[in-house]
């Protein structure tokens, strides 16, 4: 009881209207989900009414999150009348939660609008049930961000894992999808166990599980490191850090596209949130080697994801590996921030953390956009394999145009948002020479090189993604019948691309939002004192960037070129078969394929892959080329574990011999042993 009384005093001190309103909105999501069960097969009711309402709620949550970021109030606390007796749920709204709620609401609004046009009956689970799972998933993510005690956090976290599991296995009649769902659930539980253990360490022997009590717990350096490592493993399994990433390329393609967008765009960010919450809020000490560890894991994940994305031939798998890459970049930023913070360089720590936060926001926008675009393509063509798509820019102009924005953003091209965060991340690498460790000073610039390589590879991957799907000729004759997305889907895509453009052109907005978070966590912000079209994160004289001026420049140059070509020069226009290359005739099989495009990467980074190739002979009547690429981690790490578990299970299975008297003997011996304790 003392726990409840202790916090209830502080509740009075804060205005709690924002938070209670937020919680009402979150429960509004749950109610929408339940409303979906009323008429589970009426698509009109669910798609045209409930999902758009869900999008409005998401907007409201984004608005309240923004308010929490900029209001400058002290954190708000609220006790929910739920939970166990004497163990109520605590909710808390501070700037860190506000930032992630903004992210959740912004991307969630776009995804829900898209989903309103996307879900239809006859695709696995009934739409009403999907509606419930979808909105419970959204609500649980919001509650993870708002939770202020370990108990509430774990309940929300597990609800999130379970609801997303059911969403992933929406088409549960397909065995691969069931397998992918199982793998996902398994990894989610391993992660959740580690997080639970981490909280167990964080309470520091006082057995109080509110985050408030954990902030006050004094841990020795050993236990603090243990808590940090457990949290890193637990949240890393959810985020998809290598080598805990194996579920990600399986689960994302298996799920319906809006769900892939939610999982990749939003759910992975809850893991980022969890790491930030534990590392920068609950733990009061940080060691430099934590930062180096996170930095190393992040960089490796980024490179690994980019390389694997380059060789994928399934468009959703490609995006899933690209998610691993982006999560790697985010953790690189977090690692740098921990390192700088531990070395007492708060300004640079704020810069690195800002980069990580803005990249989280960016990734939630452009990755959702691209996953949703693949959903539209999938509905229009029923093809996921890149080898059977092509030339869709003329059949689906809207999706192609909006996906182009997402593609450019994820490739890190200015003036879009991907450039801003990658630029900030590179900037923070440039300041590593100030770290007072000679050895690290020599090693970390290598990290910057890896980062640059990753960014280049990501751009390469995106050229492949866009080029093979939307450009060139149709690889299958049936693609002629592909239709564009409907208006709700277009609205969802347009909303997300608008976000990409806004942050890219006016990065100062995102910088301010992240600044509020770094102010809370590190007590320091990057330099925010510049006009709204300009950012100069360290000082106004050092490295600065303006998206707006760049955009004006691009528009100017393109405009002048256009005018010069069309009006001053000959002005003729000639339409030709794409990628004709001057051949007299051309078939769709003559254009570059996804495999062909990835071949150089596959060649250069050969040791990364576990390849199986089937090459045709010149004499073959029906030549066939097949390549199968596996993750080495799978064979090196997971199969031995699986085999060990199987052996152990077989060994224990011998207990069950089938003889009745043996079973009686077991219970008899158990009885005797237990009685022996009494003796």
């Amino acid at each position: 009881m003392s726990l409840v009384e202790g916090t209830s005093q502080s509740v009075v001190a804060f205005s709690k209207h924002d938070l209670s309103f937020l919680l009402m909105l979150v429960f509004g999501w749950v109610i929408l989900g339940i409303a979906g069960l009323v008429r589970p097969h009426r698509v009109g009711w669910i798609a045209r009414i409930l999902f758009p309402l869900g999008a409005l709620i998401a907007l409201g949550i984004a608005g309240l999150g923004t308010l929490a970021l900029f209001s400058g109030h002290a954190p708000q606390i609220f006790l929910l009348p739920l939970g166990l007796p004497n163990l109520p749920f605590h909710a808390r709204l501070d700037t860190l939660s506000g930032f992630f709620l903004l992210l959740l609401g912004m991307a969630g609004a776009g995804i829900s609008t898209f989903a309103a046009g996307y879900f239809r009956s006859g695709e696995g689970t009934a739409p009403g049930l999907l509606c419930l799972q979808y909105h419970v998933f959204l609500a649980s993510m919001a509650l993870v961000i708002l939770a202020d005690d370990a108990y509430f956090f774990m309940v929300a976290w597990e609800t999130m894992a379970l609801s997303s599991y059911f969403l992933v296995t929406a088409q549960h009649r397909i065995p691969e999808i069931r397998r992918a769902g199982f793998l996902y659930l398994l990894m989610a539980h391993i992660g959740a166990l580690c997080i639970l253990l981490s909280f167990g360490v964080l309470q520091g022997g006082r057995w109080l599980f509110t985050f408030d009590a954990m902030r006050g717990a004094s841990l020795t350096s050993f236990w603090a490191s243990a808590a940090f490592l457990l949290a890193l493993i637990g949240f890393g399994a959810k985020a998809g850090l290598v080598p805990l990433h194996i579920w990600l390329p399986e689960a994302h393609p298996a799920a319906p596209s809006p769900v892939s967008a939610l999982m990749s765009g939003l759910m992975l960010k809850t893991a980022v949130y969890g790491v930030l919450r534990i590392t920068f809020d609950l733990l009061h000490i940080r060691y430099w080697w934590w930062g180096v560890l996170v930095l190393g894991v992040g960089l490796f994940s980024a490179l690994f994801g980019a390389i694997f994305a380059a060789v994928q031939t399934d468009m959703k798998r490609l995006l899933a590996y690209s998610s691993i890459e982006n999560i790697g970049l985010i953790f690189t930023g977090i690692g740098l921030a921990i390192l700088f913070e531990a070395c007492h360089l708060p300004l640079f720590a704020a810069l690195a953390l800002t980069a990580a936060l803005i990249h989280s926001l960016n990734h939630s926008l452009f990755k959702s956009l691209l996953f949703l675009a693949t959903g539209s393509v999938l509905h229009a063509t029923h093809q996921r394999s890149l080898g059977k798509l092509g030339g869709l820019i003329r059949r689906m102009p809207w999706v192609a145009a909006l996906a182009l924005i997402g593609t450019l953003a994820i490739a890190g091209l200015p003036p879009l948002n991907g450039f801003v965060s990658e630029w900030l991340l590179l900037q923070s690498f440039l300041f590593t020479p100030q770290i007072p460790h000679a050895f690290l000073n020599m090693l970390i610039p290598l990290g910057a090189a890896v980062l640059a390589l990753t960014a280049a590879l990501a751009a390469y991957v995106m050229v492949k993604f866009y080029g093979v799907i939307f450009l060139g000729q149709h690889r299958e004759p049936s693609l002629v019948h592909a239709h564009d997305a409907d208006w709700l889907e277009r609205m969802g895509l347009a909303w997300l691309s608008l976000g990409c453009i806004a942050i890219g052109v006016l990065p100062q907005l995102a910088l301010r939002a992240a600044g509020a978070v770094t102010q809370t966590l590190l007590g320091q912000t990057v330099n925010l004192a510049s006009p709204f079209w300009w950012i100069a994160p360290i000082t106004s004289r050092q490295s600065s960037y303006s998206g707006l001026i760049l955009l004006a420049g691009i528009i100017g140059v393109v405009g002048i070129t256009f005018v010069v070509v069309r009006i001053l020069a000959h002005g003729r226009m000639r339409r030709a078969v794409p990628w004709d290359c001057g051949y007299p005739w051309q078939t769709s099989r003559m254009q570059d394929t996804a495999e062909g495009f990835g071949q150089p990467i596959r060649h250069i980074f050969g040791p990364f892959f576990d390849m199986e190739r089937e090459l045709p002979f010149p004499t073959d009547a029906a030549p066939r080329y097949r390549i199968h690429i596996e993750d080495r981690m799978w064979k090196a790490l997971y199969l031995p574990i699986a085999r060990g578990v199987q052996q152990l299970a077989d060994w224990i299975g011998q207990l069950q011999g089938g003889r009745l008297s043996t079973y009686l003997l077991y219970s008899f011996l158990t009885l005797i042993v237990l009685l022996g304790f009494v003796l």
Partner: protein
Amino acid sequence: MHPSHLTAALLKLLAASLLLISFAMLSRRRTQRLITLFAWQGAVLFMSTLLVAHSAGLRELYYSAALTLLLKVIALPWILHRLIHRLGAQWDSETLVNIPTTMLVGLGLVIFAFGLAHPISRMATTITRNTIGIALAIIFLAFLMMITRRKAVTQVIGFLAMENGLFFAATSATYGMPMVIELGIALDLLVGFFILGIFFFQIREQFDSLDLSNMEALKED
């Protein structure tokens, strides 16, 4: 000799004979002999309960004794006899694993039971408290019998003997359980027994024998 001393001495005698019967059951091969022994065990149990009821002056225990007489001395042995006649199993005998070893294990169990009962009997206030160890030993021996037997009928007899031990433990530790519980147990026993009887026929139909080792084939690989 003082009457209570006499009662206590008589009780010890009865308890000892219960233990003896348990050992006898452990070594019998013939199913029919086993049923007879089971009936005898019930009879001794009936007498000891009657004695405790008399010395403690508890009316409820008289009812328990009557229940024991009806159920364990008359009804169950009679049903068992009829059952094995119907099954044609009255002359069944089974090969036991090494009777001396079983006896030695049983001896060890008795010692263990006495050690276990020692602290309990110091706390109990009943005149029967010294026999708690014997009651526990009877339970263990019945369990041991179930482990060493292969036939379905003998397993059930072992199970019933275990219940006898439990009943005896209850009487000696706390002058029996409340009547409601006792009635409930008696009913459970009867119902369980009928179900097992049905199973006998089913098992025989499936495997042409009541040998439980056939059931190993049911295990899934």
